[in-house]
C-alpha cells in the first residue's frame, strides 16, 4: 500500500514538475539561453493568483486566462528590449544577464509583497479522493490536469501553427531558418514570451499547492534544471518524462534512504545524466 501511495504521489508531483520546467526548457532549447528569471516569474504568477482570489475571489484556473497574455507580454518585451541585444554573445553573458534580471524582479517582489509566506487556501477546500486506500488530493489533480492541457496546447501550437513551426525551425537549425526568411529576432521574442507565459501559468497553478513567497523561486528553478536535463531540452514530451523521473527518484529516495538525501540524489542523477546521456531521456543530441 505504501508503495502504491508513493507511486501515485510521484506521478502527480511529476506532472507539476513538468509544468514548472516546460517554459524553461522551451527557452533553453530555442534560444540557447539559461533563463534564471524563470523561478521568479513562477512566483509572480502565484502572487497574481493569490491576489485575485483574496481580492475578488477569482478561482485560480480562471486566472490562467489573464496570466497567459500578461506574462507573454512581459517575456516578449524582455527579449525584444534586453536579451536580443546580447543573444549572440557567449553563453555566460546571457546567463549572467538573466541572473541580474532575476535579482531585480525578486528584490522587487520582496519589497512590494514582503517575504512572508502566504497560502492560497480555497474555501471550501477541495479535499482528497480515496481510491482503495490510495489518497489523491483534488487540488493537485486539477493542477495536474491543467498542466497537461497547457503542455498539450503548447505541443499543438508548435506543431500546427505557422509561428510554432517557425519556432521549431529556429530551434532545429538557426542558420537554415534565417536563409528561409524567418525573422529570427522576433521568433526569439515569441519563444521567450511563450516561456514566460508558461512560467506565469505554472505559478498560478502552484499557488494552490505550495506556500507563496519570493524566496521559493530558487527551488522552482532548481527543479526546472533537473527536469530539463533528465528529459531533454526543448521538447514537450521531454519535460513530462523528466518531471516524472525526478518525482519518482525523489519519492522513492525519500522512503528508502531518507528525505534529507532526496535532493542530493536528484542532483547526483543530474550530473550522471549530463555525463553519460546529455541529450536526456528523450531529447536529441546537440544544442551545445
Amino acid at each position, binding site marked *: *500500500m*505504501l508503495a502504491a*501511495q*508513493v507511486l501515485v*504521489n*510521484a506521478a502527480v*508531483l511529476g506532472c507539476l514538475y513538468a509544468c514548472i520546467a516546460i517554459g524553461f526548457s522551451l527557452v533553453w532549447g530555442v534560444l540557447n539561453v539559461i533563463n534564471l528569471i524563470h523561478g521568479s516569474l513562477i512566483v509572480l504568477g502565484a502572487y497574481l493568483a493569490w491576489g485575485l482570489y483574496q481580492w475578488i475571489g477569482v478561482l485560480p484556473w480562471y486566472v490562467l486566462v489573464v496570466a497567459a497574455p500578461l506574462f507573454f507580454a512581459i517575456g516578449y518585451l524582455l527579449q525584444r528590449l534586453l536579451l536580443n541585444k546580447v543573444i549572440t554573445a557567449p553563453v555566460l553573458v546571457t546567463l549572467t544577464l538573466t541572473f541580474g534580471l532575476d535579482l531585480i524582479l525578486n*528584490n522587487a517582489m*520582496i519589497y512590494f509583497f*514582503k*517575504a*512572508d*509566506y*502566504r*497560502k492560497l*487556501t480555497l*474555501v471550501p*477546500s477541495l479535499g*482528497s479522493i*480515496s481510491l482503495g486506500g490510495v*489518497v489523491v*488530493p483534488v*487540488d*493537485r489533480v486539477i493542477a495536474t490536469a491543467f498542466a497537461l492541457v497547457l503542455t498539450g496546447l503548447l505541443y499543438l501550437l508548435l506543431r500546427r501553427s505557422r509561428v510554432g513551426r517557425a519556432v521549431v525551425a529556429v530551434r532545429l537549425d538557426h542558420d537554415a531558418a534565417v536563409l528561409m526568411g524567418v525573422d529570427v529576432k522576433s521568433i526569439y521574442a515569441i519563444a521567450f514570451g511563450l516561456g514566460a507565459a508558461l512560467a506565469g501559468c505554472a505559478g498560478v497553478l502552484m499557488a494552490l*499547492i*505550495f*506556500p507563496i*513567497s519570493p*524566496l*521559493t523561486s*530558487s*527551488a*522552482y528553478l*532548481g*527543479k526546472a534544471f533537473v527536469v530539463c536535463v533528465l528529459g531533454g531540452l526543448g521538447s514537450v514530451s521531454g519535460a513530462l518524462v523528466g518531471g516524472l523521473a525526478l*518525482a519518482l527518484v*525523489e*519519492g*522513492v529516495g*525519500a*522512503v528508502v534512504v*531518507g*528525505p*534529507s*538525501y*532526496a*535532493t*542530493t540524489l536528484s542532483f547526483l542523477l543530474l550530473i550522471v545524466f549530463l555525463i553519460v546521456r546529455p541529450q536526456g531521456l528523450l531529447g536529441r543530441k546537440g544544442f551545445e
Partner: protein
Amino acid sequence: MFRFRLRRRAIACGGFALAVAGMAGLPSTASAEDVIRIGAPLPITGPLAPEAIKQKQGYDLWAEQANKAGGISVGGKKYKVEIVYVDYQSNTPRAVQATEQLITQDHVNFLFGAFGSGAAKAASTISEKYKVPTLAATASSSQVYDQGYKYLFGTFTPNDTLTTPLTKIVKAKAPDVKKVAILARNDLFPLAIAQEMEKSAKANGIEVVFFDKYAIGTLDHSATLSQIKSLAPQWIFITGYINDLLLARKQMVDQQIKAPVVTMIAGPAYQEFIDALGPSAENISSAAWWHPAEQYDGKDIFGKTSNFVKLFRDKYKTEPDYGQASAALCGALFQLAIEQAGSLDRDKVRDALAKMDVVTFFGPVKFGSNGQINSLDPPVFQIQGGKPVVVFPQAIKQGDLKLGVN
C-alpha cells in the same frame, strides 16, 4: 584597439574611486551626543527575511515608545533612541561583518544579537572582543552561551524547556500516546529542538518510531508523510520554519493523515500560520517562549503584558508573537539596564544586565551566569477555534489540550 582598453580601464578605475568616495562619505562618527545608538544586524533579505521583519517590528515598537516617553534618562539627562539596521542577507559571515561594521563604523553604543542561534553565536565573537553588551532576542541553543562570554545575554530559555513540558502535558492528557514520529528540518534550530524532543519522548516512555530530517528547500513531503502514515504514530512532531510547516500540514490534510496529537515548531505561534491554514490549523499544538495571553505586570516601559499587546496591535494591526515580543523585550531591557547603571558606559550597563532581576511584560527576567535567561516558563499552546490557546502552565492556562487533529 589599445585606446579601447585604456578607456575601459579608466572607467573601471573611475568606478572604484567612486565606490571609495561613497564609502568615505558615509556617517562614520556618532551623531548628536544625546542619542543612544543600538545596532541591529538582521537578515532583511534572503531565506530568513520574514523573521527579520518580525524582529524589526519589535525593536521599532520599543524605540517608538521609548522616544515618545521622552527617551531614556541617564543620570537625569534624556537620551533619544536610534536603532541602526544592517542587512546581513541571511548569511552568517555577513552577520559577523555587519556586527564589526556597526561597532567600528557606526559607533553604536550597544547591540542586539543577530537572528537565530548560529548567527548570534558567530557574531558574539566580535561583540565580545570589543566588549559591547549584546542582547540576543532569538538564540535558544545552549551552545551559544557555553563560550564563557561576558557581554552576551539571551532572552530565550534552552530548547528543552519547550519540549519537556509539552511531553509531560501530552502524557497526562493522552496516556494512549505510545508512538511518536519526528520530522525535522536539517537546520540548526529545527534540528536541535527535534533532538530535544527525541530525548523527552524517550525519557517519558514514548517510542520514537520515526526520526528523520528533510533538506532545506524541500518542495514536497508526500513520500515521507506516506511513510509516517504507514507507521500509525499517535503523535506527529514536525519542526521547521513557517513555509516548511505550511507545506507539511497541507500535505498531511491531502493524504488524510490523522493523529491524536500533532505538534509543530516554530510556526503556529505566528498569526500568518493560522491565517494561511484556516480550519486545518485546528488543534495543532506548539510551544513558544511567550504568548500574548500571558499576564505579567512588568516594571519595564511596556508595563502589563496586555498593554504591550494593545500597543503592538495598534501599530501593526496584528497579534504579536514571541519573536516580536522578545525583540521588544531586548529594547526594554537595555532601557532598564541603562537607567539602572545611570551611564552609557558599556561595562556598567553590562553589569546592570548581569544583575538584572525584574518582572517584565515578557515574564520574570534573570540571566544565568552564562548569560542565558533562566527565569521563564515557556507556555504550551494549541490552536483552538482559530486562536492560540494556552494549555500550560497552570497559572495562565486558557483551556485544556484537545485531542484529534484531522
